[in-house]
Structure formats: structure tokens, C-alpha cells
């Protein structure tokens, strides 16, 4: 039962060390950190409990996924504490609950394949959630992406991400052969039948339209990229990717023409430093913070960006990290993301059914696109489209949903390893039967 307890525990010491060193420094320098100590203890206990649970129940899946993600979570928690201890109290709560959801996902679902049973329910759920948000949602920062329910602010598009990816994984598992080969000949190209292509195109199209209507362009971009890459991986046809680029460019151009705020975004992106007296744009403030970090950073609690950059705790949290922890700290965050995404693909490759492979790869793509789009926006490599940085940015919906996805991935990994282990053959037969 207890496989490699010391080696496994040592992995969990990294996030715990980051958390307590960070909280310790802030405790000495920033007022209002005292109230966080209890929350931080609770979170630490929850993390250790998760570890123990895995040890006791014999978790056989990926050893690195959870500790690495936990590192990202604690970096986010420390930085949010530094920005606003009041907000951090909530975020610690969400992170702790998130660990619970993740654990429930690993041990409660038992087999991830159950998730794939009702594909159109997931699709319908996603569309309904988006439509409800569009009509009854609250507008904030130009986007209509929040639902208000009894004092809580929910961001349904986060949940839609899960629904979309599960739907796509299941749909692609069922139709990948047909999509890959194509049955209708047009000149030299073979194209899949509309009957096969229809649900995919409709689902992706409707979701993108709804998101565009909500002006959640960042999320729309993430959806589009994830869907495209999932189709590519499932079909192994580069044509889908190649076709996706002109379609993307045309859509982007259309968006630029239709939406005034898209034009403003692009203008700001091209020249963020227009005025002397106006303090410049969000992106200028973000770059000021990033630039000030230099190689080693100003030190935790010493930067100005936490006060000066708008939306420092959500979309621009990376700018605060870069200023206070420097290039070294910011690069560490990027590398942690690379490791998490890499583990997703390893899980995908090891999964012993196609649904698991496509689902794990899809989640990997999701994390990659989320991180890339906001990080490229914050560093002015691309025009800014505000989305949270997964696990790091402040926000309950995002945290819970991403913790759920983490649980799904662990579950895929665990189930796959258990099935492939020779000693467990009987058990596999039992389940399969």
C-alpha cells in the first residue's frame, strides 16, 4: 500500500516550503498577514491529507502532477496575500476546497470513463450555461461573464471549459476514424461527411459565438485553440491545423472590424505609452512592473506593481510575480507550467483507452493555451485578452474548475497504471465485466 512514502512526501515539501517562506516574509513586512496564518495552516493540512489519502488508498498514477500544480497554487496564494490579505483569505478557502474536489475526483469517480457516457448532455450543458450567462449575467470589465447567485459570483465559462473538453474527447473517440479518412471526395481531398462533422462544427461554433457575444474573447480564443488541437491529435491530420489558421485570421479580422473594443485593444497593444500624464495603459503598467523586476526581482512585498497595475490579483498577477521575484521567479512559474502540461501529455500517452488519451491531451492543451494567451498578453507579445492564469490568479470558479480537472487527470493516470500493472489483471477483468 505505502509505495515510496519518503520520496513522495519529499515532493510535497516543495509547495509547503514555498508557501511558508512566502507567508513568513510577508508576515514580517506587510500588515494584515496575521489573519492568513490559520488559512495557510488549513491549506497545508489539506495538502498533506491529500498526500496521505493517496498513500493509504494506493495511488499509482503520476507522482509529479499534484505537487507541481500545488507549487503554482501556493505561489498564487502568496502573491495574492501580498496584494490584498482580505482577498487571500477567500482564495485560501477556494484552494482548500479545490483540493477536496480534486481528491473526490480521484477517489470518488473510480473510473473517468463514466464521464464520457453522456456526450450530448455535456454539450447541451455547456451551451445552456453560456446562454444563461449572456442573458442574465453581470458585466464587468467589458465582458459579460459572471452570474450572481446568492452573493456568490460565478464564472460559468470556467465550467463550460470542462464540459466542452469532455464532450469533444468523447465525440472524437467515436468519430476519429471518420474524421481522419473522409468519405466524400472533392478533387484530391477527401472530406468527412456533414453528418460526422456537423455536431463538432455546431458545438464549437455556437460556443464561440456565445463567448464573442459576451465579449469573452480570451476564453473564445482558448476554446478555439483547444478544439483545433484536440481534433488534430485525434485525427493525426495536419490539414485541420493548417485550415485552422486562415479561419482564425479571418475571424480575428472580422472581430477587429465589428468590435470597437478589439480595435482599442490592438491600438493599445501597438502603442501602450501614448500619453505623458495619463499613466499609460494596463499593459504599460504591467511592463513597467515586469521591467523593474530585473534578474533577481525587487523582493517579495517590495514591488510597486501590486498597487499600480490594474487587476493585479487576476489577469496581471504574473506582472507582480515578475517584479517581486524577478526573471528567475517568473521563469520558475513558466517552467512549472511546462512541467504540468508535460505531465498531462505523459498521462495522455500512457492512458490505455482513446477517451482517456484525448481527454488528458485536451486538458493539457487547455492549460497550455490559458497560460500562453494571458502570459503573452501581459508581456506584450500578443494583444491582451484578459483571462485568469490557471491556479495562480485570484478567482473561485477558475480555482475549483482547475482543481477538478487536476483530479480528472490523476484519475486517468491512476486507472491506466492500475490496469497496466500485471498483478492487477483480475481486478481489471472485474471492472471490465
Amino acid at each position: 500500500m505505502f509505495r515510496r512514502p519518503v520520496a513522495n512526501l519529499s515532493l510535497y515539501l516543495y509547495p509547503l516550503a514555498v508557501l511558508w517562506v512566502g507567508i513568513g516574509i510577508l508576515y514580517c513586512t506587510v500588515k494584515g498577514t496575521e489573519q492568513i496564518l490559520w488559512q495557510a495552516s488549513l491549506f497545508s493540512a489539506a495538502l498533506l491529507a491529500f498526500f496521505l489519502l493517496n498513500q493509504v488508498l494506493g495511488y499509482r498514477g503520476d507522482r509529479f502532477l499534484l505537487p507541481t500544480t500545488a507549487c503554482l497554487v501556493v505561489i498564487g496564494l502568496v502573491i495574492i496575500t501580498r496584494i490584498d490579505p482580505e482577498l487571500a483569505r477567500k482564495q485560501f478557502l477556494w484552494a482548500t476546497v479545490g483540493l477536496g474536489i480534486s481528491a473526490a475526483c480521484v477517489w470518488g469517480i473510480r473510473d473517468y470513463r463514466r464521464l464520457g457516457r453522456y456526450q450530448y448532455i455535456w454539450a447541451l450543458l455547456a451551451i445552456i450555461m453560456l446562454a444563461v450567462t449572456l442573458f442574465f449575467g453581470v458585466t464587468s470589465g467589458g465582458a459579460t461573464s459572471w452570474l450572481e447567485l446568492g452573493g456568490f459570483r460565478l464564472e460559468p465559462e470556467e465550467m463550460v471549459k470542462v464540459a466542452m473538453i469532455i464532450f469533444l474527447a468523447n465525440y472524437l473517440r467515436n468519430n476519429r476514424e471518420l474524421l481522419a479518412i473522409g468519405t466524400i471526395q472533392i478533387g484530391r481531398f477527401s472530406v468527412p461527411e456533414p453528418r460526422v462533422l456537423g455536431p463538432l462544427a455546431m458545438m464549437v461554433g455556437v460556443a464561440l459565438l456565445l463567448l464573442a457575444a459576451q465579449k469573452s474573447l480570451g476564453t473564445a480564443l482558448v476554446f478555439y485553440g483547444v478544439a483545433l488541437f484536440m481534433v488534430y491529435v485525434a485525427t493525426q491530420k495536419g490539414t485541420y491545423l493548417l485550415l485552422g489558421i486562415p479561419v482564425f485570421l479571418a475571424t480575428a479580422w472580422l472581430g477587429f472590424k465589428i468590435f470597437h473594443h478589439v480595435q482599442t485593444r490592438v491600438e493599445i497593444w501597438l502603442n501602450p505609452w501614448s500619453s505623458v500624464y495619463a499613466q499609460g495603459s494596463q499593459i504599460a503598467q504591467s511592463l513597467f512592473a515586469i521591467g523593474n523586476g530585473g534578474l533577481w526581482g525587487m523582493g517579495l512585498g517590495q514591488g510597486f506593481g501590486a498597487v499600480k497595475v490594474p487587476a493585479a490579483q487576476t489577469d496581471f498577477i504574473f506582472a507582480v510575480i515578475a517584479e517581486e521575484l524577478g526573471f528567475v521567479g517568473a521563469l520558475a512559474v513558466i517552467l512549472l507550467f511546462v512541467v504540468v502540461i508535460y505531465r498531462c501529455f505523459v498521462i495522455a500517452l500512457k492512458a490505455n483507452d482513446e477517451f482517456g488519451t484525448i481527454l488528458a491531451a485536451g486538458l493539457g492543451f487547455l492549460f497550455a493555451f490559458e497560460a500562453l494567451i494571458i502570459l503573452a498578453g501581459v508581456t506584450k507579445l500578443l494583444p491582451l485578452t484578459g483571462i485568469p492564469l490557471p491556479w495562480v490568479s485570484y478567482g473561485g470558479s477558475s480555482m475549483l474548475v482547475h482543481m477538478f480537472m487536476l483530479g480528472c487527470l490523476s484519475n486517468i493516470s491512476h486507472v491506466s497504471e492500475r490496469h497496466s500493472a500485471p498483478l492487477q489483471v483480475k481486478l481489471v477483468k472485474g471492472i471490465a465485466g
Partner: protein
Amino acid sequence: MSKGIKRAALGLTLCFFILSGGLAYWQIIASAQLLAKPGNLRSVYLEQQIWRGGIFDRNGEILAKSYSPADAAKILGHPIEAAITRPGDNYPQQVVLFPQGDAFTHIVGTYSFIYGRSGLEASLNQILLGLGPGESVQSHAGQLLKTQRRGNDVVLTLDSKIQSAGVQAFKGKLGAAVAIAPKTGQILAMISSPTFDPNQLDNAYSTIAKTGNQVFVNKAISSLYPPGSVMKLVTSGGLLRSGLDVNALYDDTGHARVTQNGQSRDVVEIYKNGLGEINFFDALAKSSNTYFATRSALAGAEQFLAAAQRFGFGQRIPLSEFADSNNGVLPSSITKDGVPNALSLGQLMDSSYGQGQVQVTPLHEAMICAAVANNGVMMRPALVERVLNPAQQTIYRLQPKVWLTPLTPQEAGLIRQGMQDAVVHGTAQGLAISGVDLAAKTGTAEVGGPIKTTDGWFIAFAPAADPLIAVAVVVENGESGSGAAGPIARDMILAALRESR
């Protein structure tokens, strides 16, 4: 499916690699450049460790000086608002105040914890902090700043008496004015209207911003105006170089038509019946458009364009404190392309009296006027007269330098004669100063756009024989130059002459 996943993983890793490269660029390569951007307040906070030097006018009047927050609050009569609200921060540690109120706002600049630095406060920042070239506050953040460091004091060429006289006269009018000492190129005054009190920037930003009319722009260097008839100084330069007979008479009938190479163009005078038989001096004094348009057409576009080039059109004026392309000195131009190689007949004739696409900055117009005053030599403009280190030793002193020589002394003398005539019996008659030999030129420029308006220009220097001051004033919507802009220039010249006595 594994091949696709591996390829996608490789592609995404590459994306993260590029992202890290971008991050390295901003954090390591462009770091210092970002710190220097206007609107980046980080350097303002770091600089608080150094006691900032003051800015003084040529007579030692304080234009900007650092005070402790307590003293500053006492002087201003209200508490200093800290831009950083986080508890435990001890900012600000010093506040820069501007005792001259709204008189020097655009040139000396502003210094704020919320809106950063502008004007000379921005461009002389390194000197005011006592940092050498290449030294940055950031690189010293550790040890050096722990010892109480002081910055350098800067003495400007500006004269607060001339500046105040101009600002007073400008009240209620929009536009800009520049005064220059013709022999040295020292800038004596630089005014942009509307203005605001830099001491109130943090407090009353929204009210100030609502003033509109480009209240934050230093119009003297960063706004381009059509010069109208004050352009005739430059046109004269071209005509005289082409061998114009200044005494030859021309019959100004109030209308003229020129036909050249199949092109044909009309010029209409404001005076319906024309000025009659006039020579060069009358034409300049009474500002005949037909004279300059027809003579320029005869002399050819090359002569006019060469003169414009000699006067510095199309070139960046070497005022090193405002060399930045953002909010710096804009170059004057004959057409949208600066100084082109050729002009159509119509363009040439319009340009000869400062319409068409001709655009100048008030600074450049003052320099053109000063060049005529200084026997045809245009000096390099300067704002910093001296720099004193904390021990009050002079570490920099201004040396006058020639920039361009647009006219020969003879040519300059002829134009000066026409400008003196303008005061005696020409368009600037009403502005004569008794006992002072004044040389002047008026201008009234039509401004294009949905609603046609006119800008009034007045350029002048005095005393004509041994000039101490050359002034250029432009008043937006100023109707005629002599009416709106003339009195402002006159007040500034009077202030200068009063002082020299």
C-alpha cells in the same frame, strides 16, 4: 495518436520558450528603458532617496524646488496626498513645488507621484538627481542611497520677468510664445496657453484635463501652425539670394495671375484695391501677398526651397533637452514630406506667404526672427545656462554655438529694414514703442478644417541695431496678428528692455 501529441507538445514547448525570451527581453534588456518611460512612477519613488536639485531662472529666481512633505503642506495649505496607500510606506519624502504657479508649467514641467514627470523635470532628471550618464537610481538602490545624497541645481536661460509678462498678457487667449536672445540663442521665455498650476496637478487633475485645448502639450515646441505672412522672412531670404532688385517697383492691384508652363494661378490681396506701386521694403512692411507670390514664381521653387532648407525647415531643431520624439520639438515643414524637391506653381505661391501646407513651431519662428536680428546667423537654441553641484561649484556652463547661417549680413540688413518699416508705416504701426527701435512682422494664417479660423502671428526683435530679444507669438483664433499677438510680444519686449536698463 502519440505522434500528434508529441508534435503538439513540441510546438507548445517552443511557444513557452519564445515567451521566456520575451520575458528576458523586458526584464533584462529593456529594463532601464522602461524605467525611464514617462508615466513609470517607479523611478520617482526610488529617487525619493536623493534630495532633488532645484531649477532657477537666469537671475536666481526659484522655478522648482524640493521641500519636505510637512513644509510643502504648509506652503500649499493642504495635506500632500500619497499615491501609495499601502500601510507602512513612508512616501513621499520630498515634494517638488513650483513657486511661480502656472507661469512655467510647460517648460519647467511637473513632478507628481501620480502623473510622473514632464518638461525639464523629466529631461534634466539625471542632472537634478546628481547622477552621471549611465548611472541609474536602480543600480544604486542598495548602498549609495543610504547616505544622504543631493542632486545638482540647474540655472536656466529663462527670465521670469519676460515669462511672467507674456503669461499675464496671454490670459484668456490660446497659443504659444517664445523669446530668444538673438546673439546667443538662449531661450528667454517659452509660453504655452492654456496653462495650469503644477502644484495642483495631483489635486485637481480632472479639472485641469477638462480645460481641453491641449492643456498638457507644450505648444511652443510640439504644435505646428501655418505661419501666414511671417513666412515672408524666409521667402525674402530666397528672393534676395536670387538677386531680387529691392528697389524695383511692383504695381500691387490687389490681384495677380501667374501663368507658367501651362499652369495658372491667382492671388488675391486682403486690401481690395491693392497697395499701388511698392518696392521690397513696402511689400514686407505692408505684407503684400501678390508681391511675394509673383516674385517667388519668377525666381522659381528651387530658390524658395533652398532658403527654407537654410532656415532649418525639415530638420530637427537641436534643443537637446527636448530631443525625444514624444512631446519633443517637431520639425517645421513646407509640405507633408518636410522640404520636398519641387513644388507646383500653386504650392509655391501659397507657401510664399505661409499658407498651403507650410507648418512651423513657435520656437522655430522665434529662431527665424532671431537669425534676421543676428545678421543672418541662427544660433543653437539653449535652455540650460549653468549646472551647480551640491557644493555650488559650476560643473557646466553654456557656450553659444552657431546652428545655421541662413542669410548674409546684407540680406539680413535688408529684411530688418522692411521689418522696421512695418512698425513705422506698415502692418505693425499700432505697436511702436516710443524710444525703442523695433522691427516686426505680422501674420494672419488661415487654418483649414471644418470651421475656418485664423491664427494671428507677431514676430519682432528690439532694439533693431543691437538686438537683445527676439519674440514669436501665435494666438489661436487670433484674427489679425497685430491685434491679438502684437500686445503680448510688446509686453515681453518691454520687460526685457526694462531689465537691461
